[in-house]
């Protein structure tokens, strides 16, 4: 429900932008008329909605083909890349966070934290470029571009996606590690951890049953939302690696002022993010006994 309510607002913003731009370019007026974009925003919007519900997201201005034809495969591509990066980073990020959290203040923690965060702040474009330089050009291990031809086998795809996925993973690692670490530190300080120790439980059991259980809960929720970010936020990486993902598509649309494609693309990205967040919320609610059992209170 919330997803769709929010979805209502998204095109609103872009719609205004559309109108704003065209107000300064009279020469394109005739063009607009042909495409129906000089009608009022509301009318356009209703029209679009009608089409969208029926599965028709409009026609691309530039290529004059249905928008979905381009968006569909691009979305799939982005999802593939996102998933790959995700699979790479989540285990390491969580492990890193746990280790850092368990050894707070000590060298291991400082090392992991500083390195992780530093890497996270470096723009993916920089990491991506450096990776290309190192792994593709100097070492020649992996291909420069990420786009494989359709029909390529799974292993080829993995090989091609490895570099961009790694670049993404580096950025995410810091973030996930930080959240996990904070959760672990908080759980370690908690009273219930003290109770567990004072019961005489062995260290490992305390960490496993008491600390990690409570520390990882918020982490999982946060991580899930990151997937949403991944799908649309890959613009730079996709551009860098010539990957035909949805980010690159949106970028091209913006460059070519193909607003129909642009709007649709942006909305799709937004919806994916919201859907993922919804799933994350549900997941969090299921895992957290406090929320699960609130009905009975």
């Amino acid at each position, binding site marked *: 429900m919330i997803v769709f309510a929010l979805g209502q607002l998204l095109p609103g913003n872009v719609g205004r932008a559309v109108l704003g731009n065209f107000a300064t370019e009279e020469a394109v007026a005739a063009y607009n008329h042909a495409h129906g974009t000089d009608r009022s925003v509301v009318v356009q919007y209703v029209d679009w909605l009608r089409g969208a519900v029926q599965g028709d997201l409009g026609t691309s201005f530039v290529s004059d083909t249905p928008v979905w034809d381009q968006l569909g495969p691009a979305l799939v591509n982005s999802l593939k890349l996102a998933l790959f990066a995700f699979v790479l980073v989540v285990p390491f990020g969580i492990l890193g966070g746990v280790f850092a959290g368990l050894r707070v203040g000590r060298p291991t923690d400082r090392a992991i934290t500083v390195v992780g965060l530093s890497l996270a702040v470096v723009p993916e474009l920089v990491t991506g*470029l450096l990776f290309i*330089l190192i792994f593709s050009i100097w070492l020649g291990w992996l291909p420069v571009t990420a786009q494989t031809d359709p029909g390529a086998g799974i292993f080829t795809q993995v090989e091609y996606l490895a570099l961009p996925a790694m670049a993404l993973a580096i950025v995410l690692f810091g973030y996930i590690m930080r959240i996990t670490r904070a959760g672990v530190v908080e759980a370690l300080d908690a009273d219930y951890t003290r109770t567990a120790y004072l019961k005489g439980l062995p260290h490992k059991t305390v960490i496993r049953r008491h600390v990690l259980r409570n520390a990882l809960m918020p982490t999982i929720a946060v991580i899930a939302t990151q997937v949403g970010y991944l799908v649309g936020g890959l*613009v*730079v990486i996709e551009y860098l690696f010539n990957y035909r993902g949805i980010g690159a598509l949106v970028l091209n649309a*913006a460059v070519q002022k193909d607003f129909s494609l642009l709007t649709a693309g942006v909305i799709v990205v937004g919806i994916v993010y919201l859907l993922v967040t919804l799933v994350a919320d549900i997941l969090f609610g299921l895992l957290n006994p406090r929320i699960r059992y609130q009905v009975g209170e």
Partner: protein
Amino acid sequence: MSSVAAPTARSEARTARRERTRLLLRSPSFIIGAAVILFWVATALLGSRITPYDPVFDQTPDLSQAPSGDHWFGTDRLGRDVFSRVLAGSRDILIVAPLATLLAMIFGTTLGLITGYFRGVADDTISRIIDAVLAIPLIVMAVTVVAALGSRSTWAVTVVIAIVFAPIVARTVRAAVLGEAQLDYVEAARLRGERAPYVMFSEVLPNVMPPILVEATIRLGYAIFAVASLTFIGFGLQPPSADWAVQLTDNYNFMAEQWWTVAFPALAIASLVVALNLVSDSFQQVFER
């Protein structure tokens, strides 16, 4: 249980501050980070005055040379000295990013204060809008807004980044304000007839400054990130500017043959961003004790 009095409370606070500064100055991350930042700020200020060659216009006949004694970082396709360009390239980023961050902080903090303090209808609607906007990843949003605005000037980039970051800042500030506004002294202020603007800005704001400042440093790092990324995909600063990201755009396609034209600007970006992170991390370390 009550906290205990210390007849020397005030001097204790001062010694604590002095101790913290001392710890800060001894922390390696702070020193390294601050040094790097100062270095780049210096080069930004001094600009072409200290570069061996003019970064924009000096086109030597040595085209595409690998690093050598004459040109430490080599030259690019147009014969420009990469070292000079790297040194000069800090300026634009160091102008745009902090400015954008400042704008975002002002706008975002005000929004955050309003939504966090008033709650109710205003909070619900504005927060919904913010959520919607945040559902779209930064770059996509930035790209869209730039496309809509039509212009690609430096000004536009600054404003775009500010607009895109303000909601994030607003969210953080709102969370801090929510927690703070529940405290009794806020109620006490209202009970003596204070009006809302006074309570928000004079009572609550000073107490949420620490998280705001932390957020500011984080935003600054991401602003640099955003400027570089936007420029790279063509939506930001333009050639012949010596800005690092521009260099990346320029030379990206020739990376295979002339790695030096890409590697050094990239490392420069990385160094600035990491340095910022080190400094903010060392702040957190010291103030967390």
